[in-house]
């Protein structure tokens, strides 16, 4: 449901059902999907998948092997306190209408609200004997206030522009307290119009946890995807600056940087019981004390790379080929609090809430824009700043992290794009406020 300026703009619901079959022949996967679960359609899908895979022999590579794993049979479902599809539409509509109305009353030119719900039941069956069923329910919501100035727009959103999402029920939306934050973000968006611009230069940068979650997603999560490292995504999503020869020894960041790949976190958006090739969810280290130690892998890529685990292969539905995707990739808690980080900073800038993101095809050079920033002077937050941006190179940036909060939030990203045809992934990113030194800020046209 989308709401704008106190009215519901769109209510839509989509149901689909189908079967997708992947078949490995030689060096290539063949995949065929049909929106039909009849025996005949399933048989056809299997035959077509094998035919398509065989046609790849015109441009062959080395035969692909799958990492040997234990054949799993099981069930999994995430915990839901309040079934999100059971909450009346009128109640949901009232919430978004009230929140967007409140923002309008506080000066928003465009007040928007959204919630999204996914309810997915899937069965995974393999010729090796896997028999797995899963029921995954996800939901979340968010609001934003946009104000129009002279040749510019300013926006504030809560809890982020995309909202906050998780593998849980409507309780996730309720605890956000959208209405309780509506007036504040509208006021902040208006104030941004008259705020000074983020200065240009190099400074100490403190990031809020939502922005750091996206920084992790873009400059760590994608970089450690094994299919990218192997060149399988070179033409579109890109490759990675990481070289497998350095796995276990490369200095990725400072000693404070501990990043895990953990699809078992209750309620986080990237959680599941089994991935989409039947590997049970298992936590792993990606970066330990600043050293790169792990990747996101599947059974085929792991086999090629000589790695002994998969577990991070998913598709965005029955109609798409499963591929390496992030699960929950995020930071372990640090030793500080946000208050301590600010108090310990004499001169810097605090930025929060992502507004734009861009990173190169090797996942090195990034530039992010945030919705709002504040000067930090002598251990306290100062003036509000608008149009904050920062840019850098991944490993240099992460090595400059010298303070990290313990206040972890498992941010959910419901719009991770990858693959051809394109797939939208749901990923989780535990993150907390952190401080980085000597960061270039204030890049503008």
């Amino acid at each position, binding site marked *: 449901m989308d709401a704008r300026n106190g009215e519901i703009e769109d209510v839509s619901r989509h149901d689909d059902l189908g079967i997708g079959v992947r078949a490995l022949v030689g060096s290539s996967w063949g995949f065929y999907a049909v929106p039909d679960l009849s025996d005949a359609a399933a048989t056809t899908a299997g035959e077509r998948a094998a035919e398509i895979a065989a046609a790849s022999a015109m441009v062959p590579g080395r035969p692909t092997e799958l990492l040997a794993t234990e054949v799993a049979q099981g069930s999994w479902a995430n915990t839901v306190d309040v079934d999100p599809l059971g909450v009346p539409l009128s109640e949901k509509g009232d919430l978004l209408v009230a929140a967007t109305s409140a923002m309008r009353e506080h000066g928003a030119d465009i007040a928007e609200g959204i919630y999204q719900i996914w309810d997915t039941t899937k069965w995974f069956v393999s010729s090796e004997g896997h028999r797995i069923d899963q029921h995954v329910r996800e939901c979340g919501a968010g609001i934003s206030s946009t104000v129009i100035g002279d040749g510019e727009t300013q926006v504030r959103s809560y809890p982020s522009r995309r909202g906050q999402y998780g593998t849980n029920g409507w309780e996730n939306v309720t605890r956000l307290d959208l209405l309780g934050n509506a007036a504040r973000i509208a006021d902040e968006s208006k104030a941004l119009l008259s705020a000074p611009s983020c200065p240009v230069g190099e400074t100490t940068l403190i990031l809020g946890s939502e922005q750091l979650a996206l920084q992790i997603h873009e400059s760590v999560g994608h970089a450690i995807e094994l299919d990218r490292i192997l060149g399988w995504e070179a033409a579109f999503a890109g490759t990675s600056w990481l070289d497998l020869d350095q796995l276990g020894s490369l200095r990725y960041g400072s000693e404070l940087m501990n990043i895990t790949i953990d699809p078992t976190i209750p309620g986080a958006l990237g959680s599941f019981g089994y991935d989409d090739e039947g590997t049970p969810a298992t936590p792993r280290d990606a970066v330990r004390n600043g050293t790169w130690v792990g990747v996101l892998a599947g059974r085929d890529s792991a086999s090629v790379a000589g790695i002994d685990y998969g577990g991070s292969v998913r598709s965005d539905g029955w109609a*798409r080929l499963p591929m390496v995707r992030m699960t929950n990739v995020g930071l372990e808690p640090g030793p500080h609090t946000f208050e301590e980080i600010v108090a310990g900073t004499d001169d810097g800038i605090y930025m929060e809430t992502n507004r734009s993101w861009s990173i190169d095809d090797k996942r090195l050079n990034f530039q992010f824009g945030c919705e709002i920033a504040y000067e930090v002077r002598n251990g306290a937050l100062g003036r509000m700043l608008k149009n904050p941006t920062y840019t850098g190179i991944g490993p240099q940036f992460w090595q400059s992290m010298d303070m990290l909060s313990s206040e972890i939030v498992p941010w959910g990203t419901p719009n991770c794009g990858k693959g051809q045809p394109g797939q939208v992934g749901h990923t989780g990113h535990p993150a907390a406020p952190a401080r980085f030194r000597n960061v270039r800020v204030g890049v503008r046209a």
Partner: protein
Amino acid sequence: MRVRELTDLAATVVELIGNAEPNADVEVTTDRTEQALTRFANSAIHQNVADESAGIRLRLHLDGRTITLSSSTASTGDELSGFVDRALHTVRSGPADPGWPGVAPASALPPPGDAPLVGAAAERAAVVRAFVDAAGGLETAGYCRTTRSERAFANSAGHAAAAAFGSSAFDGIARRDGSDGVARVETDTIGEVDGHALGARATAKAIASANAVELPAGRYPVLLEPTAVADLVSMLVVYGFNGKAVTQRQSFAEVGTAQFDASITLVDDAPSLGITFDADGTPTARRVLVDAGTTAAVTHDRRTAAESSTFSTGHSLGGGSTGGVALHAGISPGASTGPVPDDIPELVDPAAGSLLASIDRAILVSDLWYTRVLDPKSLVVTGLTRNGVWLIENGEITAPVKNFRFTQAYPAALAPGAVHQVGPIAVGIPEGWIPARWTVPALHLASWNFTGGASG
């Protein structure tokens, strides 16, 4: 399910709703799409996929409330009845929709054309084989895609329409020592995709990128190949010419104002691709959005048109909050100055070749990557160059250049006086994420704001 069945299904749903609720406004779209995509990397096909999708989308407005339901399974019998019943039940508990614009009036539309078939996996593999062979041993990666869609529409005003359309696309890179070269094209049929020529150009780019130099940040004139120009068009139509953005004062576009160089004419032409109606059922038409530099029109669906007291331009994407977007837009090519010279370096897209000789100094850009909007009003965009960058001096390519990061206001790059040359050949370029085709020439622009080298 073919067009006739899709048409019948759409009419049946309208009738079922009408029987239950004669006062309801109803729109039904039914569609069937076949897509096949052959993906290669490390010079071998590694992911070869195809799928069939079929669906029905119902938008129902009753007693001041609107809901949209879609399904991939409701086509006959109990499933269809259940789908209709769920819609009738759901709409009664839905929120009020005071902005409902009503359904499109009945109008005559041409019958569906002949859309190309998706073809066999072997056809796509043959194009990939030609690309890989042309690379002469360089590592290659990319995809070859064919797609075919049939779509029907019916509403409670008695409006009905059907269309069939399809396309082929190829996007490939050749790689050497960390340098990539690209060739990308979208055509109506796979027979128009010349895998060998594309492979030769991508390879030439990759080879000529060796030992690239880093240039200082700053403003440079640029020669953007069509693969890069496509990004400008996509941003302009989504953020600038989107009528909803204009109504909300989030767009730079001002109809009647000379906001672009006189050499720029921007046209959206869905009918030329066989797409004769939009998701609201509104007929599409060739629309001039920029006429010789002057902003001439913006795009609307029925809802945003009603909010602006104007008419729908046939650009509905099917509900949601996006607004009307021109997904088949292009910049009209410039005047031809004769055949492309024979001595154009192979790395240069032929669409840009004839512009090269007259350029004193500029950066040749093959591709733009990961572009994101910093402010929609000014349409300031940040992103990176990719897949081949060179310095042009005195009409010749003199050095490969390392990738840049840029932060650039796109309308300003095309502003009056900012466009030196518009190439004489427009090329179809596929969009990565949405079913769009941009038909674009090369552009020689006076200034582009490179804010730093991509290496930091």
